[in-house]
């Protein structure tokens, strides 16, 4: 039997004071799909950096096709045929598909003029796109592509480099269900062609669907391997956190109230031709599902006043209100935990304390000057309440993990007087443990009489957390589902515009 394509033996990486990886060994053969799981901070990204040649292991051996590679550099990694498809895509929006795929190694023509050979580029890109079965061409500007399509461009780029191993890091975090299915079938296709895949994901369903084998990292160590027939949710979760995760759904103690937020005939700037009617009751968690681009985030932005609605009425507890900007929304207790935490939710360089007080500074400045002691007291209280894991509330938000960053965003709103909170993709990129804490918190808020709208593309989350689900399709609400009616199938039917069978 030939040596496997890639072997890692006893890889250890230590930073001053920290061991990121210790004694990790595993191998991957051609055409094999390995699911790599582990909570954030388990050492997955360090391992990937070592495979990319970006970080040198402190100890250990890397073998490619059975040959030892003592100094595994970026160039060597590329030559070995290792390619990455990152969570955050590295594409140039101002260029077209073909240019992106051949960026930095464009076929040349015109002699000393060094012109880009457009025809040649296109000729070489077209078959790659065909292989992936996408419906855009080499000339399509990347700016016009959806996130899932851009991911396909990244994969095409990897293929153009004759990749033998593609490492996918949370590839589906921004994808809808159908797009995820499509990606999984592309993975099956690549596997059939002999390309190896390392699939890193928090979404255990997908891992289960595509992986031939699952390896799990915890605290820098490889804690277990699951063979194809052993890949089950409970087994994977047990490996990741070392214990069984309780069921995520927490049933409400009380029935929701009748009052809450009512939207009538609301038209957003993204879909001016469609109106949204929606009632969100205090005490419930209403899931808002739908495909990417179905208008969920536009709706959230309209309610919060970022892009004020073009028409329609918004009423809170029966009182009509006007929300022309976020200040108005915040004054009414309507808060938004945005989709992109790093860009819209936090000022990353500010300490936790200043992030928490930011939206409510006037409360901390009774006499025009900010009272730091009040800020500190609030920050410490929220740190304890939400379990923000940080040495100090003076730590800049940038150095926190995704889960803790999200907790800081929530702490900002919880330190005020929430009536309605909109969570846009509340647990994207957050590890399993922190996810459960955030679900628990949402439930507590609902019990305290807050109306909660949870936008999510994670089907497990929508079904596992919501009391009721509204599904959006092309700018309007396609239908509501009660908890008893919830299923992936029912949600998908509405999301793609099919009326459910009566």
């Amino acid at each position: 039997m030939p040596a496997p394509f890639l072997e890692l033996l006893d890889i250890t990486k230590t930073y001053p004071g920290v061991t990121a990886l210790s004694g990790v060994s595993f191998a991957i053969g051609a055409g094999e799909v390995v699911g790599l799981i582990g909570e954030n901070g388990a050492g997955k990204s360090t391992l990937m950096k070592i495979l990319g040649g970006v970080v040198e292991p402190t100890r250990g051996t890397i073998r490619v096709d059975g040959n030892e590679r003592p100094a595994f550099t970026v160039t060597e990694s590329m030559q070995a045929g290792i390619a990455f498809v990152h969570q955050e895509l590295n594409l140039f929006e101002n260029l077209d598909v073909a240019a992106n795929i051949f960026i930095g190694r464009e076929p040349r023509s015109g002699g000393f003029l060094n012109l880009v050979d457009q025809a040649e580029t296109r000729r070489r890109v077209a078959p790659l796109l065909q292989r992936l079965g996408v419906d855009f061409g080499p000339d399509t500007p990347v700016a016009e592509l959806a996130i899932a399509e851009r991911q396909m461009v990244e994969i095409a780029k990897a293929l153009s480099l004759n990749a033998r191993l593609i490492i996918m890091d949370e590839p589906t975090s921004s994808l809808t269900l159908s797009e995820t299915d499509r990606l999984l079938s592309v993975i099956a296709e690549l596997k059939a062609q002999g390309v190896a895949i390392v699939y890193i994901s928090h979404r255990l369903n997908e891992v289960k669907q595509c992986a031939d084998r699952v390896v799990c990292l915890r605290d820098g160590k490889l804690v277990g391997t699951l063979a194809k027939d052993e890949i089950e949710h409970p087994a994977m979760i047990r490996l990741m956190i070392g214990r069984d995760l309780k069921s995520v759904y927490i049933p409400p103690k009380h029935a929701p109230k009748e009052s809450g937020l009512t939207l009538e005939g609301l038209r957003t700037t993204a879909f001016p031709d469609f109106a949204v009617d929606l009632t969100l009751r205090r005490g419930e968690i209403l899931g808002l599902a739908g495909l990417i681009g179905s208008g969920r985030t536009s709706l959230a932005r309209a309610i919060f006043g970022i892009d004020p609605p073009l028409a329609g009425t918004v009423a809170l507890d029966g009182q009509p209100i006007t929300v022309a900007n976020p200040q108005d929304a915040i004054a009414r207790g309507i808060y938004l935990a945005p989709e992109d935490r790093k860009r819209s939710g936090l000022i990353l360089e500010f300490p936790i304390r200043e992030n928490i007080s930011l939206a409510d500074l006037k409360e901390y400045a009774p006499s025009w000057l900010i009272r730091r002691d009040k800020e500190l007291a609030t920050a410490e209280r929220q740190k304890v309440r939400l379990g923000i894991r940080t040495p100090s509330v003076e730590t800049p938000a940038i150095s926190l993990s995704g889960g803790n960053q999200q907790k800081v965003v929530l702490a900002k709103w919880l330190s005020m007087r929430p009536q309605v909170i909109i969570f846009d993709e509340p647990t994207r990129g957050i590890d399993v443990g922190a996810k459960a804490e955030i679900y628990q918190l949402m439930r507590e808020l609902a019990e305290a009489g807050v109306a909660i709208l949870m936008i999510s593309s994670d089907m497990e989350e929508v079904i596992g957390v919501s009391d009721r689900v509204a599904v959006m399709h092309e700018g309007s609400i396609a239908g509501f589902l009660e908890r008893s009616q919830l299923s992936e199938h029912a949600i998908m039917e509405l999301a793609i515009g099919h009326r459910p069978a009566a």
Partner: protein
Amino acid sequence: MHKKDLGLLVLVLVIGAITTALNPVFLSPVNLVNMANLIGLFGIFSIGQGLVIITGGIELSVGSMFALIGVIFVDLLVNFALPWPIVVLVAIGLGLVFGAVHGFLVTRLHLQPFVVTLCGLLIYRGIARWYMADATIGFGYGDFDTLFWLASGRSFGIPHTFIAFVIVAIVMYVVLHKSVFGRHLLAVGKNEEAARFSGINTRVVIASAYMINGALAGLTALFLAFYTSSVSPSAHGSFYELYAIAAAVLGGCSLRGGEGSIPGIVLGTILLQILQNLVNLLGIPTSLNFAVMGTVILAGVLADQALQRRRAIKVAEQQRAKVVAAA
């Protein structure tokens, strides 16, 4: 005081010490008073510039504002013989209006600050020259004793420009580092979108920075007109915005926005003025003036960068150690 500012303070002291060693006259009362006067003149508008830079913007038209406000100010005072308190208010008000216009163009029409204020630079300079038909205007034979004393006199031996600067610096220190507006300014400069999502009226915050800068420029225009005793519309204040930008950058303001402190800007101004002074005191050819200034700014910024990187590494290590200990 921030660590960054402390480094700058050390640089100021070192250069001061070297200059004193080479020529003890540097620390003579006369020289200190002269320097205090110039620090006051250049410091007031550098603080305004710093605020604009903190929003991520830039204000290039300050020098031209000095010329335009300067000629109008002298003209109203000398030839229209208006009472001086009114003229002073007009001058500061004009600066405020210019700042408001810039703020409006930047926040409402979404023009780039560089473009807006570059146009301001050209327009104000042009109007000033046209208004005076390029002639130099002076205070002539008028009697402005009170105002003259206020603008260029001394109390307890301290030049009034310097006193004004100290007052402005203290007020702006409180505004930037202690007030809600200051926090909002830093937040908007660092991440405008997140600031907006936190309910901050980002437009008002940014426009306010330009208006404060305009008002401080108007105030400086008065002091400067009295310092030179005459205003030549084509040359008056030319390139002075660059002194302000240099002081702000030396003082730790990032042109990307969100960073900067008042003590830093104050120290930056002091350092720049010391450099100009030492060129004269040490008998360095005056033509080398700008080269000396440029070299020291570059060295300062490089040193800061190096220190910052070292500090970042140290902080990261400490934090990692803490996280590990906590886990």
